[in-house]
């Protein structure tokens, strides 16, 4: 091929591409000839899909001119796909949003501000927990309505707890400190047994051959492990919402060190080589294998425990730390895409998904706590019928909580923290150094 032909081809390709980069139009949903609007709704949880289909069937009945198509993709692919779609301006009209991604989306203008719609429809947003609602707000603009919420609690094996002479009330009332670990570590010592039947506080305990650990912890970013200890120690992950990361502060490093000590100093927690993300065993699996008596896990995993342990598990509150009780409190929202060709209809869907009527349908599945707190009791009742008291999650939600950090650097933080903290839990890096490096790199990425 001659040089000039190649140049022309390259030029044409580039031209076509740049055209693609800059043209802003493109529709997401579609309108058929009879005036029926089809909306696309993207979600990432297969477990909730059947319940959502039920809710949407009810919605379509109320709005005969709107059809909704659910597009399910796994969390692992959801965001890559969504970003590509956003680049091509073909994103779904309505999609599940997570706090880790929300700030970047808000900044890029792909999320529609719901405030005018809320005002026009005189929607009562006081039905939502203000802490949840404000998580989707920036500069007075509301970018989503709460879909659900979650907290972290202690899921325990009933048989093991009983064998150690402990009750759920006692488990909920434990406390830890940085000096000797407090009653929390004492209880975990009772629940940790080596192959000769000895406990970690006994002479001759063999930390290399432990049959049953008191605790198992796992988290790719801290949400189900050290963020909770940090909250209990008065640590703030950020100086303020949308501000700088502050995980290198002493109160945070102490909490990180404590989580590390549970494994490496007290030998009461399952070694990190077993639980580290991504190749480690999932917490429900650790419990099913009877490797641990207690795990810290999120309310979203309740169904997994039920399927692996039937009714042999209970839920207790997290211990209190030097500063008091505390948990991570988070939730998802339904977001409206600014590029939607049918914003009015899409708003109707967002409004419906945030309504009590719709959330009641989802609650009945017992998969997630509802975004509207007055429905919490219904969730508790669903689980009561299954023989599990899940109120520890809502007790904690009412107390001191840490929200998911609101920052544009979540992606950087998530990548850095996974690798650095896995090494901390393995004893390959110090808590101080890891916290400092993750803090610095995450702050450098704040936009």
């Amino acid at each position, binding site marked *: 091929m001659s040089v000039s032909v190649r140049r022309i*081809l*390259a030029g*044409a*390709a*580039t031209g*076509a*591409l*740049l055209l*693609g*980069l*800059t043209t802003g139009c493109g529709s997401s949903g579609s309108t058929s000839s009879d005036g029926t609007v089809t909306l696309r709704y993207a979600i990432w949880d297969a477990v909730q899909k059947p319940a959502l289909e039920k809710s949407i069937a009810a919605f379509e009945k109320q709005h005969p001119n709107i059809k909704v198509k659910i597009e399910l993709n796994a969390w692992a692919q959801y*965001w*890559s796909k969504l*970003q*590509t779609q*956003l*680049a091509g301006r073909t994103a779904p009209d309505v999609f599940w949003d997570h706090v880790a991604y929300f700030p*970047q*989306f808000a900044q*890029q*203008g*792909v999320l529609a501000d719901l405030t005018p719609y809320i005002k026009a429809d005189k929607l009562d947003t006081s039905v939502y927990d203000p802490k949840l609602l404000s998580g989707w707000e920036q500069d007075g603009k509301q970018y989503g309505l709460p879909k659900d919420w979650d907290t972290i609690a202690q899921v325990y094996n009933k048989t093991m707890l009983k064998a150690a002479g402990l009750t759920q009330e006692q488990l909920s009332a434990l406390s830890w400190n940085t000096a000797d670990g407090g009653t929390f570590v004492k209880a975990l010592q009772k629940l940790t047994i080596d192959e000769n039947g000895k406990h970690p506080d006994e002479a001759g305990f063999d930390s290399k051959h432990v049959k049953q650990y008191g605790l198992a912890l796992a988290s790719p970013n801290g949400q189900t492990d050290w963020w909770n200890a940090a909250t209990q120690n008065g640590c703030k992950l950020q100086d303020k919402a949308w501000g700088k990361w502050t995980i290198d502060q002493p109160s945070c490093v102490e909490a990180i060190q404590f989580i590390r000590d549970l494994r490496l100093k007290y030998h009461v927690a399952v*070694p*990190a*080589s*077993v639980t*580290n*993300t*991504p*190749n*480690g*065993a999932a917490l429900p699996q650790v419990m099913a*294998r009877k*490797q641990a008596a207690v795990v810290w896990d999120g309310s979203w995993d309740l169904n997994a425990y039920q399927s692996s342990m039937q009714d042999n598990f209970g839920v207790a509150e997290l211990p209190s730390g030097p500063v008091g009780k505390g948990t991570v409190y988070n939730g998802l929202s339904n977001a409206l895409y600014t590029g939607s060709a049918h914003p009015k209809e899409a708003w109707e869907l967002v409004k419906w998904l945030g309504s009590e009527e719709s959330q009641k349908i989802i609650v009945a599945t017992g998969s997630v706590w509802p975004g509207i707190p007055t429905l919490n009791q219904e969730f508790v009742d669903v689980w009561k019928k299954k023989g599990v008291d899940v109120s520890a999650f809502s007790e904690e939600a009412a107390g001191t909580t840490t929200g998911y950090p609101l920052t544009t650097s979540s*992606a*950087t933080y*998530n*990548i850095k923290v*996974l*690798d650095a903290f*896995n*090494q901390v839990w*393995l004893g*390959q*890096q110090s808590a101080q150094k890891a916290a400092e490096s993750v803090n610095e790199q995450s702050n450098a*990425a704040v936009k």
Partner: protein
Amino acid sequence: MEAYILLTPSLIGFLLFLLAPIAGVVVISFFDWNLMGSPRFVGLANYREIAGDSEVWRAVRNTVYYVVLNIPAQTVLALLLALAMNRRMRGGKVLRVLFVLPWMAMPVALGIVWNWAFDPQHGVINQFLSLFGVDGPAWLSSTTWAMPVLASVNVWQYTGYTMLFLLAGLQAIPESLYEAADLDGAGPVQRFFRITLPLLRPSMFFVLVTNTIGSFQMFDTVYVMTQGGPGGSTDTMNFHIYQQAFQLFRSGYASALAMLLFALILLVTAAQVLYFRKRTVYDFS
């Protein structure tokens, strides 16, 4: 003229669906673009950033280390397997299917199963080692072992596939050459080095070039098993590119990184081509 008619469909695909997107990548590599807003021209800034980015150079080292672990092991094993299978034997067909099976695996399921296998306490591998009194390491939590584990998984996956090409090459070697060698009193070792290996060179060339290119772009196994950890020890170039592009929203930088990987592969492939060109003595055409 006929040539162009024969080439037309392939050329359409090549220009439109390969070259045009690649041209796009080249263009994007000069921009700062997060996929959502409008791209901003930054000249060579992305390339300058690469020069000072120690994580990129670690990823380059990791990638080269992976290729060095993977390609020789996979090629030698595949060759031995092909030699062993190149005879009429009972069950040969069944064995062939079994050896090629790993290549058909779906990465998602593979990740689940291999992570089970390498579990430090409940994994098949350490349980097996413990039969001999060996305390197996925590494979995927070890900066020393994680990369060799990934290389082994890929050797597992592609050895049978590679064998298929080498077996085909072996079967094309005329029997008469071996008979002549027998008459000269050549032993099995001499037969291998004088006849088999030289005549296998064309197959070897194809296998080495395509497998090396593939190895440099290794992604699935890192993605499902280690996400680049522990301690960054399995962060390969292609995984790093993925993180920059799809987790950090940095399309421009990721595109520049892709150019770097491209250059690296081009260099290695060119070296392979020169090596084989010099040595391919037998000409079939």
